[in-house]
């Protein structure tokens, strides 16, 4: 699983870089527009360690944000599965807020919370929270009639059992959703850093953009890709373990 993810990323990245160089040489563009392979290599050697630390910083925020959003989505999803007014309200609110561009709200968050990790964490959580919530709501509001019917007629169906049954029946789907939202958490953190933070790889990319230094951005993209792939692999592996344990 690990090898496959990394191979996939490396193939895509290498092809992307090659195409970029192809365009550069075909159109005779200067190093200002697209850096030369040698410049990318030299830049990579110069900034690799510093950027690695920055990516780890971003990843740490993304992982915490992701865990927070999973937790919140689970809690709100359980409440939202109710057919009561509260449940309906949560569903409607989630659908509407999800359609709202969080990036547009991000500057307000930075003004209120400052440009420290709290703002990055909140934006990362918000970006992956709503898609997660909708999936969790979808799973938890969908009855597993065959199984639930038995417990219901015997009067043993508690809300905890209902949640367990629905989660168990949809564990593969939930695992996929959680893995998928990890990318969103990473994207959310980078976007937050890009807008206003003072740390992380998004902030570093912002500086490189000010300097019109595409070589630095390519190095940053490489590191982001590798570490996001590794995070996804970890989540898939965890999901696999949970599924195996539950199926026993």
């Amino acid at each position: 699983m690990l090898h496959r993810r990394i191979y996939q990323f490396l193939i895509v990245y290498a092809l992307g870089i090659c195409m970029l160089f192809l365009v550069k040489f075909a159109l005779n563009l200067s190093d200002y527009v697209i850096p030369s392979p040698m410049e990318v290599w030299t830049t990579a050697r110069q900034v690799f360690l510093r950027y690695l630390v920055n990516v780890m910083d971003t990843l740490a925020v993304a992982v915490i944000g992701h865990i927070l959003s999973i937790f919140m989505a689970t809690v709100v999803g359980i409440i939202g599965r109710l057919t009561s007014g509260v449940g309906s309200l949560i569903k409607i609110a989630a659908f509407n807020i999800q359609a709202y561009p969080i990036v547009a709200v991000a500057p307000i968050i930075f003004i209120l919370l400052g440009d420290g990790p709290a703002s990055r964490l909140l934006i990362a959580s918000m970006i992956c929270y709503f898609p997660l919530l909708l999936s969790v709501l979808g799973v938890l509001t969908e009855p597993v009639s065959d199984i639930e019917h038995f417990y219901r007629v015997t009067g043993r169906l508690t809300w905890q059992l209902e949640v367990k049954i629905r989660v168990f029946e949809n564990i593969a789907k939930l695992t996929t959703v959680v893995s998928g939202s990890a990318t969103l958490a990473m994207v959310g953190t980078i976007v937050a850093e890009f807008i206003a933070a003072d740390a992380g790889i998004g902030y570093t990319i912002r500086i490189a953009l000010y300097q019109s230094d595409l070589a630095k951005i390519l190095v940053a993209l490489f590191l982001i890709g590798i570490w996001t792939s590794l995070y996804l692999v970890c989540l898939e592996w965890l999901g696999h373990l949970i599924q195996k344990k539950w199926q026993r």
Partner: protein
Amino acid sequence: MVIIFKKTIPMVTVLCVIIVAAACGYRENPPLDNISYRLKWLFNISSAGDIWADVHGHFQKQGLTVTVKPGGPERDAIKELELGHAHFGVASADQVIRAVSKGSPIVVLAQLFQENPLQWIYRPNKTIIESPADLKGKIIGVTFGGNDETIMRALLAKHDIDENEVELFSVRYDYTPFYQGNVDLWPIYRNAQAVIIGNRLRDAGEQIAFFNPHQAGITFVANSVVTTQKILDEHPVIVEKFMDALLTAWKESMDPVNKEKVIETVHQFDLDTPKEIIGKQLEITRYLTIPSGDYGNGGEFFGKIDPTAWKDTEKIMLDQKVIPKPVNIEKYLKPGN
């Protein structure tokens, strides 16, 4: 391995489509029947002359069809020139020098600002700055990677202030740290945001002052009009007509006689800025585009390229290691074209 390749095929296809589309957008010999002019920033007072040329038909009078396009934080006129998406553009001197150091085939046709509008705003009742030495111990806002960082570091070096003696604070678009008093000096464009922020602070009963690096001996050129060497070589007449129209428009727009009309014209493009503010911005822009600040005496200097200032700018960038080696920027200055 086959599975991996199969899975990556869609991603690779998307990538290829993007890159091929970008390549298709490239035009080696861009036609000059519809000239594209990319500004550095969004439409505001710093592009008063460009807007004036467009609205009042200066390009048309020269027989040119020109589309004036606003810039922005992610826009880079020099890259657009190279890719053939623009024929003329506005770029700051540091962008030009960086591009030249990386082999970009561009030339400078005019220097719109004779003095860099970048200054630092501060509260004189809390922060006393009578000389650069007073910067010691202060918290100074800079945009890391931006030209204000280069200017401030050059200034500190020039006045023998160790970087440990000041605290550099990372600045973005949000002024809250300055409003809250967490930062002593904040970088600001004197003719644009400074008027708006200054008004806001004055309304709140605060005193404001500006620290001008130019007066502290740092000459760093700001916005300039650029094109490619190829366009200059192949279409010298069009370049001449374009520059003639543009500089005439700049001169007219800075003429105090046209003040009200200029305010009205700029406001059409910059609806978020009240006319009263644009009026104040215009006064300062006039001062920055004409060295004497007096239109009657300085009108003939519009667009004048100051080679010494460019060499100083290059030296600063070299000293700050922003460029790896000298570029002899004077070779790329083509006034009078």
